[in-house]
């Protein structure tokens, strides 16, 4: 085993000894780091679930054309032909008024009310699906189709999606800011924890420097300690978020079933968990590095 590996081995052993020597202090530090990390992690998991939920709906804008009751089959064919000539139209679907009424009765549990109607109040409709969720294109198609004969009303269905997208984008920005702020908080927590550790080992550091220890040698056990604190804090955060999701999922399941959905909040997958733990360990490492470097600069 090379001298370098022996240094690492000694540092690891020392780190484990330090962590276990003061279990309550270690637990409290890890809990603080875990709580700080749980907030952005939880927000991230919710955002990912929201994106998944939004992705379940069509990501293509739709324009609905409601037709006059007097529109004949030829009128309908003519409208469809004109729409086909427009660029950006992905597909069209004619929805007869009888089908529309049947769908309405089924989806909104209104069969009793609809059954009491003397006649079908709904018009025939053509649902136009566009390429992508292009608001400008939807507006253009809407205006064009509005001028067609036998088209009484045009409704664009992309507005709510744009609002949801905008909300998700806003959430992502807030999440990045929150993540940066709490990462700084984690670095500060580790910095202070390591600073206190340095104070308790001040003599050892001083003697080590005088007998020829390099900065890297002095840094190493503290870097391991900071990295371990970050990693353990990350594990706590994952536990908190998983527990929170499990609690929320009971209510989410009830809510989703009311909309006839099987939607559930998913936890992070293994690759995301691994990345998150690596990130939290690195933040702890960074806080520790800054703390030891500051100390070594001050005593030099």
């Amino acid at each position: 085993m090379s001298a370098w590996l022996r240094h690492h081995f000694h540092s690891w052993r020392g780190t484990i000894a330090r962590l276990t020597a003061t279990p309550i202090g270690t637990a409290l530090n890890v809990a603080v780091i875990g709580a700080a990390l749980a907030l952005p992690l939880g927000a991230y998991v919710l955002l990912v679930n929201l994106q998944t939920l939004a992705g379940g709906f069509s990501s293509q804008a739709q324009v609905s054309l409601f037709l006059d009751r007097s529109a004949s089959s030829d009128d309908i064919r003519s409208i469809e032909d004109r729409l086909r000539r427009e660029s950006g139209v992905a597909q069209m679907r004619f929805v007869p008024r009888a089908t529309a009424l049947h769908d309405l009765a089924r989806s909104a549990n209104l069969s009793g009310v609809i059954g009491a109607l003397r006649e079908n109040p709904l018009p025939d409709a053509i649902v136009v699906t566009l390429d992508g969720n292009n608001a400008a294109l939807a507006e253009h198609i809407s205006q064009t189709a509005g001028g067609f004969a036998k088209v009484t009303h045009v409704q664009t269905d992309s507005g709510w999606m744009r609002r949801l997208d905008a909300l998700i984008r806003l959430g992502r920005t807030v999440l990045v800011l929150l993540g940066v702020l709490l990462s700084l908080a984690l670095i500060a927590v580790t910095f202070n924890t390591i600073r206190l550790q340095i104070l308790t080992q001040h003599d050892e550091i001083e003697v080590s420097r005088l007998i020829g220890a390099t900065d890297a040698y002095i840094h190493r056990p503290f870097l391991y300690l900071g990295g371990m604190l970050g990693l353990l804090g990350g594990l706590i955060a994952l536990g908190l978020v998983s527990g929170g999701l499990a609690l929320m999922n009971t209510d989410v399941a009830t809510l989703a079933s009311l909309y006839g959905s099987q939607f559930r909040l998913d936890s992070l997958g293994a690759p995301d968990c691994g990345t998150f733990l690596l990130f939290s360990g690195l933040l702890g490492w960074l806080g520790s590095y800054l703390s030891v470097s500051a100390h070594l600069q001050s005593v030099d």
Partner: protein
Amino acid sequence: MAASAPIISFREVCKRYPGGYDALSGINFEVDTGELLFVTGHSGAGKSTLLKLVAAIERSSTGTVLVAGQNVSTMQRAARPFLRRNLGLVFQDHKLLYDRSVFDNVMLPLQVIGLTTKDASRRARAALDKVGLLAREKANPMSLSGGEQQRLCIARAVVNRPSILLADEPTASLDLETARSVMEIFRSFNQVGVTVLVATHDLAAISQLQPRLLALSKGRQA
């Protein structure tokens, strides 16, 4: 025992501390390989500063300090640890670690250079044997007498087999008999080829050694 090549060389060395206090002024001397030199002078004469300059703990304000051919005055921070691995340092206040045993204190320099546990243990025990502390290897340094703590400090300083041994007031708090026994230890290391520099104001403790002296007074060579 002195060889021809100087292992330590001071040329017009001055050390001024922040605030304008001149700890050393115009110091010129050389120490040959394998030589035993005592730096003497009253408190405040500049003895400790001189040793700190050799060990690159302090940096000279002007002049040149050469140690084993390296200019310590301009040495980069990253190079200092490797210089110190060739030096053995003995301090007036011992600088022992009281959270570990006598044996573990001596093991520390060997861990720093990455020796295997087996080799390090063998060398640590040999160093403790040389200073007469092998029987106390498991004891805490706190339980040792002042003289024993100083001998432990010497064992830690020599365990790396340094070419230069520096000692700053190693007998300051010891009675004359113990002080002489500590000085004898330094002489025994010098006799096997180690260059030894001892800063002391205790002339009685070194009187029987008839050493070469470098006398300092108020930061200047007397």
